[in-house]
């Protein structure tokens, strides 16, 4: 088990390194001079040169990367041009809403999509199957923000059941916290549900056609046991895999959802930073999201040990 863990970790490190390099290059290789942008329109050439030296932009690019990476490893992500806080502080302050929204969404999505997918596969060709497939295609097609506005229109403006926008911190009261998260979570989970339900249905359909399911039926086992302990148990790996990969979709959706619902989380921070050309923050947020994504997928990989006994070292 530990060799497996070590091996997966070792495979992750090059990926993280490449992410760091890519993020660094992305921002350094853009047209336009960051020093000029920071200095502003009113600056004279000496001030710009000063800022450039201060940022280390006059050194060769490999050295710049070395310096930047060194700072990264010691936990220093730089200071935001726009917000006048260190990037780390900025992220720490904004992480709670994003975390709350993401966790709510993931829990909701998995609880809804996996059973639906299993039922659709079991009764393949039935009304549930067709309805699910239709819903899935719709889920991929309606953009997150359009859906968000539709939901706000119906449930907040017309019916008045739920608040229109905004976020309440957990510490300020559980029920308001939850109320403000309901619409955003539903909005965000639609695409996630569409993806997971689709893959669940495909995976379970495939395992239901396998020989060991025929054996299970030949043993006279009740159908529920056959579907869950034999078919679903063997479909766990692809389903869990897509839950991990779908996090990328989730992150993209978080950026939009927080904008629609005015939630002060990391997604909103990304947009604000990009509009303000705030390089350190952009870098910091992208690095944070990417590392989180890689880590989550590492956890998914480790979960294979639990789901599939054939994987072991």
């Amino acid at each position, binding site marked *: 088990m530990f060799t497996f863990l070590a091996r997966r970790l070792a495979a992750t490190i090059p990926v993280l390194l490449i*992410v760091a390099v*890519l993020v660094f290059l992305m921002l350094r290789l853009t047209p336009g001079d960051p020093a000029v942008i920071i200095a502003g329109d009113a600056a004279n050439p000496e001030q710009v040169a000063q800022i450039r030296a201060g940022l280390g932009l006059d050194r060769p690019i490999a050295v710049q990367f070395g310096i930047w990476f060194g700072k990264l490893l010691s936990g220093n992500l730089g200071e935001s041009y726009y917000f006048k806080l260190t990037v780390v502080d900025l992220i720490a302050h904004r992480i709670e809403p994003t975390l709350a929204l993401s966790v709510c969404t993931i829990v909701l999505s998995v609880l809804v999509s996996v059973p639906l997918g299993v039922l659709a596969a079991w009764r393949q060709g039935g009304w549930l199957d067709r309805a699910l497939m239709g819903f899935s295609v*719709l889920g991929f097609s309606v953009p997150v923000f359009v859906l968000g506005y539709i939901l706000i229109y119906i449930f907040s403006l017309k019916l008045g059941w739920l608040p229109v926008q905004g976020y309440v911190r957990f510490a300020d009261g559980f029920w308001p916290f939850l109320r403000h998260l309901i619409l955003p979570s539903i909005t965000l989970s639609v695409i996630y549900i569409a993806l997971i339900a689709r893959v669940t249905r*495909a995976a379970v359909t495939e395992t239901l056609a396998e020989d060991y399911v025929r054996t299970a039926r030949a043993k006279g086992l009740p159908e529920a046991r056959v579907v869950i302990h034999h078919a679903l148990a063997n479909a766990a790996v692809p389903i869990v895999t897509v839950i991990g990969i779908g996090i990328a979709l989730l992150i993209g959706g978080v950026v*939009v959802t927080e904008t629609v619902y005015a939630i002060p989380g990391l997604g909103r921070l990304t947009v604000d930073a990009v509009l303000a050309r705030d390089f350190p923050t952009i870098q910091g947020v992208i690095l944070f999201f990417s590392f989180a994504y890689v880590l989550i997928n590492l956890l998914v990989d480790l979960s294979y040990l639990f789901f599939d006994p054939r994987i072991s070292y």
Partner: protein
Amino acid sequence: MPPTAVPAEAAVAVQIKGGLWRALRGNWAVMMGGSVLALLALIAVAAPWLGTVDPTLFDPASRDLLPGAIGEITDLDGATIAHKFLMGSDGFGRDIYSRVIYGTRVSLIVGAAVALVSLLFGVSCGLAAGYIRWLDGVLMRVMDGVMAIPGILIAIALVALWKASLTTVIIAIAIPEIPRVTRLVRSLVLSIREEPYVEAAVSLGTRTLRIMFGHILPNTMAPLIVQGTYICASAILIEAILSFLGVGLPTDVPTWGNIMAEGRVQFNDFPHNVFFPGVFLALTVLAINMLGDGLRDTLDPRMSKRI
């Protein structure tokens, strides 16, 4: 015990026997999605003749008109003409209907271009990775790195940092899609190389390049076409999201995302700003996704297990 014929053969058999068109025509999703798409393409081409005005025209007197209202609009020469605002007007007095119709052009162009670019690069990288062993390790690590960064963040960052134009938007959206295509092509290459008929070609003395293009590539066409349609749909969505967030194409270019972005501040009072482009967007993406599903079921049934 003789094995039964590989299921994928049935798909090839149908194509060869009755012709590809017949197989496609028989699939409901292909016909439905394909016709809607064809209709939209037609609308895009025929935009100037569909009762539209220049989408950049505006008139302060015609601000925030509800759908169906008649108002006036100032054309390029300065003359004021009466005009029926089928989908209402926005905060500047621009005709939403015209903007939505012209927006079709942008969306379809972006979708098609992104699909083509990412397929082109993805296929090249995938073939290289599948065939050149030392390149495989390096290339796939880089692709893993790119895939580790959520695609939309890459797109947002790139468009924000380069000058926002049609080309940059297309490239920025295509870059995150390339690794997925590469992975797909690479895995197809690796699996098809194991097939006995490829081994037979090797012992018949066929050269590597000819094997690649004569045996392997034709058998990867089907999944690639399906993947291409999904990329097209995704690209149109992402372009809209970029515009909505304010990091897409400049606001004078009418895209559905732009219209919705500008209209969202007045959403409570004038939801038509968001709804009409939203419906068009959803319909387009839906049609392309359906087309993709239908193509997948017709051309390569095995893929429906992989998604």
